[in-house]
Structures are given as structure tokens and as C-alpha cells.
């Protein structure tokens, strides 16, 4: 016993040491990298060679050597990576002015430093130019799409911002389609995305902080928040967690989510994501922090609470009564999506007395002669449904339709008429499937919960379901997202925030930001904004 324990302990310690070692090695490699930050020499050839040595001979690396000056006496080189730059900008605004502008008359013994400043200051027609002296910097900016201008005899180089690559335009987002509201969605381009947000919140308080994560990918990310509203602790914590990330690559915001979320092993996500600028802007205005990642249209927002999944941007654009009705329907649909199969199993195998008599006859008649117990039927149908769904998403559209036909025929008709499964099971699963799409944020967690609850219901009946639900409740109650309890504003209860949970009050009555998220600047609008008719004019002879 104790042998075992001590072994276990020892292996732990070893693991820890190994990890520490690795970390140290990483640090070392970083240091050597920093040491090797060679400065530019004054020889163009040398500089080019050292850049080539780092970047290697790639087909998309283009080095254009040319000469300029009134006598063509200054040789220079432009380095850029094809496909990541705006070619017309390089041709028209960098090479053309340099070679065409003859006013650049230079003495034989002219100083190289002066040349650089003159070129930067008077010749190039480009918005953003920086000077750089180290080769590493040059390589990095070249890789991110800038153009480098190297000049003979200069110990500095110009980094000319010329990023321009094919991007998708701003289009209707696919995951969150709405009827009323802005149609634009985020794109893969970080700059476009920040612009979309900036266009919504034109305030000096709106802060965007840049960061680069990923040793190999060097992915740019931005932290967006509203200064004076967002909880500074959350911002600090977010930055701390983001800085902790030391990985080779970030390809999508999901990577970031995985690294910074509070409950990495939970089936519930504690960080929200959205593809719509208006949704994200709304969340930022409520005091949340957003993280935009280059290369993905999905923007992370946190702190996230459970009920956020039930709120849609459109709720706030439509009239409050309808919005509230839809809200309630979403809650019902979520309940159906996780409870319907397990309730069916529990009712038909444990609590037949709960089924009204005529319904019981129908259910009994439909399950008469089917070979499998109800649990197996429901689980199998659930798995088949998930397979169909997955196939439908992954396959190309035309084939996807074929899948749905096959699914409908095989499962809906043949299986029932062959007596393999009861007709009621098909109805239950179909209802579940439809309901599970109503709350997209919880679709994935719902699928898992469904399976767990069906198994529990199959072994313990209704008590099993209740045990499962209480377990879920305990789990949800113990979750936090960046310091905010996941179940707030329900638990802990903050009565003021209930204005936006089961029903949505009119916009003019939404006086405060959610208290569980924001600690400062709680009030978001003036107190009396309820529209009223203008006061009646008191002149009595008005009718004439």
C-alpha cells in the first residue's frame, strides 16, 4: 500500500521536475534567440545574405534588387513575401517613386543615414513606415506581410507596412442568423474585426490591447474592453492568463479558450463566443472583456454566465413581450432537449403509473413486440441521430440532403414498420433533436447531458434523473467564470439582474449593467427614458 503510494509520489515529483527542465530549456532557447539578434551591417549584400539564411530559399520570398538616384548610384533591395503584400502598393508607392523621382540627387559621399530619413520623409507614399536595425525584427515583420527596404551603406532598414492579402468580405454570419438586426459578421482579419467593433463603440474608453501568442504562429490577438466599466480585476486576470500561454501555435480562438477558461474539465464552456459584432459590442457594453484572435471570425467574451446561452442579439431588437416569450420557449426547449429521452425511458420502464391511461395504451401498443429495452432504443436512436447530424454537416450540401432522406426513410419509416423500435421513440428523439438546436450555445453540453441522463434514467428511473439534475446543479453552482458565479444572477440571486433572464424588460427599463459582472459604473442610462406623449398644449382656441 505505502509502497504504491510512495511510488506514485515519486513519479509525480519526477514529472514535475521534467516539466521544470523543459521550461528551463525553453527559456534558454529564448535567450539564445535574443542574443543572436544581429544588427544590420552597412553592406547590402551581407544583409541580404543573412536574411536569406534565416528565411531560406522559399518560392514566395521575393527579393527585388534595384538601384536609384539620379545616376542610379544607390543600390537597394526590397524584400517581401508574395501573397501577403499589396503588389500595387509596392509597385506604385515604393518602387515607382524611388526610381522615378529624380530630385533625389545625391553626392558621392552622401551619408547613408540621411538617405534613409529622406526616403522615409519625402519620397515614399506609404502610411506606416518604421525604421529597424536588427535582422530578427526585419524577418518577423517580413513574415507578417510588411515590405523591407534595404539600402546600400545604411545600417538601418525601412519596414514599410504593405500588408494586403485576399480576405473574405464582411458577410452574414452563418452560426447566428437573425431576422432583424445587422447582417455583418466578423471575418478572419483581425484589423477588420477591430474596425467592426470600433465602428460600433466610438468612445475613447474603448480599449484595444494587442498581444502576440504562439511561438511559431505568432498570432496577433486583441483584448477589447470598455475602460471604467469592465472590472479591472477581470482584465488583469485575462492578461495574466493570456501571457501564461506558451505554445507553438494558436490557430483559432478555441485554442485560447482552452488555455484560459476556468473549468477546463467541465462540459460547460465558461467562455462565450460570438460571430456578430453587435453581440460582442453589446457584451463589451455590459462590462465584459472580448478577445479577438487573428484568423478566426469567432470572438471570445468573458465572464460568461449560464443564461447567456439563452439570450440572443435579436431579443433586444424585437418587442419585449415577444422577446420574453421566445426566451421562455428557449428554456423549455433546453429542458426538452436534455430531459425528453430520459423522461421517456424513466416513464416507460419505471413509472408507468405516471402516464395517463390512454397514452399508456398507445405507448404500450407501439412498444409491443419491439426487441430492445427502452434504454437501448433511446440510446441507439440518439447515436444514430448524432451520426446523421455530423454527416449532414461535414458532407457537401447535395450529398447532405441525400443523408437526410436516408435518415428519414430508414429511421422514421422502416425501423418502425419493421418492428425494430417503437414509433414513440422516433417522435421523442426527433423532438429532442429539434429542441436541441434552439439554444446553440448549449447544444454540445446538452448532447452529453442527454446521454448521462438516459443512462441514469435507465438504471434508477425518475430518481436517477433527479440525481443527475441535482448533480448538474451542483456542478453549475460550483463553476465560476473569471470570478463571476456561473449561475448568476439566479444563484447567487441578484434581483435586479432578473430583468434579463426569463423575460426581457423594455430597453428603457434596463437601467443597470449586470451586477454580477460589473462592479463600477453600474448605471447605463438615465433613469426616466420611458417614452411619453408630449404634454398637451393648453391653448383653448386651437380648434379654430
Amino acid at each position, binding site marked *: *500500500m505505502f509502497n*504504491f*503510494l510512495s511510488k*506514485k*509520489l515519486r513519479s*509525480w515529483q519526477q514529472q514535475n521536475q521534467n516539466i521544470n527542465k523543459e521550461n528551463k530549456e525553453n527559456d534558454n532557447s529564448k535567450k539564445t534567440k535574443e542574443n543572436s539578434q544581429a544588427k544590420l551591417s552597412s553592406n547590402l549584400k551581407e544583409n541580404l545574405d543573412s536574411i536569406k539564411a534565416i528565411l531560406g530559399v522559399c518560392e514566395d520570398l521575393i527579393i527585388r534588387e534595384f538601384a536609384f538616384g539620379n545616376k542610379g548610384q544607390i543600390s537597394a533591395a526590397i524584400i517581401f513575401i508574395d501573397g501577403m503584400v499589396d503588389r500595387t502598393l509596392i509597385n506604385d508607392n515604393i518602387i515607382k517613386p524611388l526610381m522615378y523621382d529624380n530630385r533625389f540627387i545625391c553626392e558621392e559621399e552622401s551619408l547613408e543615414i540621411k538617405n534613409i530619413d529622406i526616403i522615409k520623409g519625402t519620397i515614399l507614399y506609404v502610411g506606416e513606415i518604421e525604421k529597424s536595425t536588427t535582422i530578427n525584427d526585419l524577418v518577423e515583420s517580413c513574415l507578417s506581410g510588411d515590405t523591407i527596404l534595404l539600402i546600400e551603406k545604411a545600417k538601418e532598414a525601412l519596414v514599410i507596412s504593405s500588408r494586403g492579402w485576399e480576405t473574405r468580405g464582411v458577410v452574414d454570419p452563418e452560426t447566428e442568423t437573425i431576422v432583424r438586426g445587422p447582417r455583418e459578421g466578423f471575418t478572419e482579419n483581425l484589423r477588420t474585426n477591430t474596425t467592426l467593433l470600433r465602428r460600433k463603440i466610438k468612445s475613447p474608453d474603448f480599449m484595444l490591447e494587442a498581444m502576440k501568442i504562439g511561438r511559431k504562429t505568432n498570432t496577433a490577438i486583441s483584448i477589447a474592453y470598455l475602460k471604467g466599466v469592465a472590472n479591472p480585476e477581470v482584465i488583469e486576470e485575462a492578461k495574466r492568463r493570456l501571457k501564461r500561454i506558451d505554445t507553438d501555435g494558436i490557430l483559432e480562438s478555441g485554442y485560447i479558450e482552452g488555455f484560459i477558461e476556468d473549468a477546463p474539465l467541465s462540459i460547460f464552456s465558461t467562455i462565450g463566443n460570438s460571430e456578430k459584432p453587435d453581440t460582442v459590442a453589446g457584451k463589451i457594453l455590459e462590462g465584459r472583456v472580448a478577445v479577438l484572435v487573428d484568423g478566426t471570425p469567432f470572438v471570445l467574451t468573458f465572464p460568461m454566465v449560464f443564461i447567456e446561452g439563452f439570450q440572443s442579439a435579436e431579443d433586444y431588437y424585437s418587442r419585449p413581450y415577444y422577446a420574453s416569450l421566445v426566451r421562455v420557449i428557449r428554456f423549455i426547449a433546453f429542458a426538452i432537449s436534455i430531459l425528453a429521452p430520459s423522461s421517456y425511458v424513466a416513464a416507460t420502464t419505471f413509472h408507468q403509473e405516471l402516464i395517463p391511461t390512454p397514452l399508456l395504451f398507445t405507448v404500450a401498443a407501439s412498444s409491443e413486440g419491439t426487441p430492445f429495452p427502452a434504454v437501448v432504443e433511446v440510446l441507439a436512436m440518439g447515436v444514430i441521430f448524432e451520426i446523421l447530424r455530423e454527416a449532414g454537416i461535414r458532407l457537401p450540401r447535395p450529398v447532405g440532403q441525400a443523408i437526410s432522406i436516408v435518415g428519414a426513410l430508414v429511421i422514421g419509416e422502416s425501423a418502425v414498420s419493421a418492428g425494430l423500435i417503437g414509433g414513440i421513440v422516433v417522435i421523442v428523439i426527433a423532438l429532442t433533436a429539434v429542441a436541441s438546436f434552439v439554444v446553440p450555445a448549449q447544444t454540445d453540453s446538452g448532447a452529453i447531458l442527454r446521454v448521462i441522463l438516459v443512462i441514469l434514467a435507465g438504471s434508477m428511473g425518475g430518481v436517477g434523473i433527479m440525481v443527475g439534475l441535482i448533480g448538474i446543479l451542483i456542478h453549475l453552482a460550483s463553476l465560476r467564470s473569471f470570478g463571476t458565479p456561473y449561475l448568476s444572477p439566479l444563484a447567487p440571486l441578484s434581483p435586479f439582474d432578473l430583468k434579463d433572464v426569463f423575460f426581457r424588460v423594455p430597453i428603457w427599463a434596463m437601467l443597470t449593467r449586470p451586477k454580477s459582472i460589473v462592479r463600477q459604473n453600474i448605471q447605463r442610462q438615465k433613469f426616466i427614458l420611458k417614452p411619453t406623449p408630449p404634454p398637451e398644449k393648453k391653448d383653448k382656441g386651437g380648434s379654430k
Partner: protein
Amino acid sequence: MKMIILLAMVFLIILIIEAPKLIVNKYWKELIVFLSLLSLAFILTVLVILGVDIPSPLEGIEYLIDDILDLSWERK
């Protein structure tokens, strides 16, 4: 017998899960309390499974209240 082996396994799992944390943190006192409570629990459950007639604490209370102090509501 099958039940007792099963029970021993459960207790072993509990021990493996809980004890290392206490040892790593050097919570010696807690470890002692934990181990003694766990062994008490083990003895109790084994006795229950073996069907040994353990006197119920409620019977003791009933004896105290009813027979010694004569305070039971039933008598008055």
C-alpha cells in the same frame, strides 16, 4: 464475501484518491483523523454487510429517555 471485496476496493480507491493530497501538503494531523475515520467506516460497513446486529444509537436513546428518565410521551 463478494460484497466485502467490492467494499475493500471502494475503500482502497478512496484512500488512493484522498491520501496523497494530504501527504504532499504535509497535513499529518488530517491524515491521522482521515485514516481513523475511514477505518471506523470500514469496520461499520463490514459489520453491516456481515449482518452483525449492531445496537442502533436510537435504541440507546430510547432506553435513556424511556426507561431511565421515563420522559417518553407515550407514558404520560
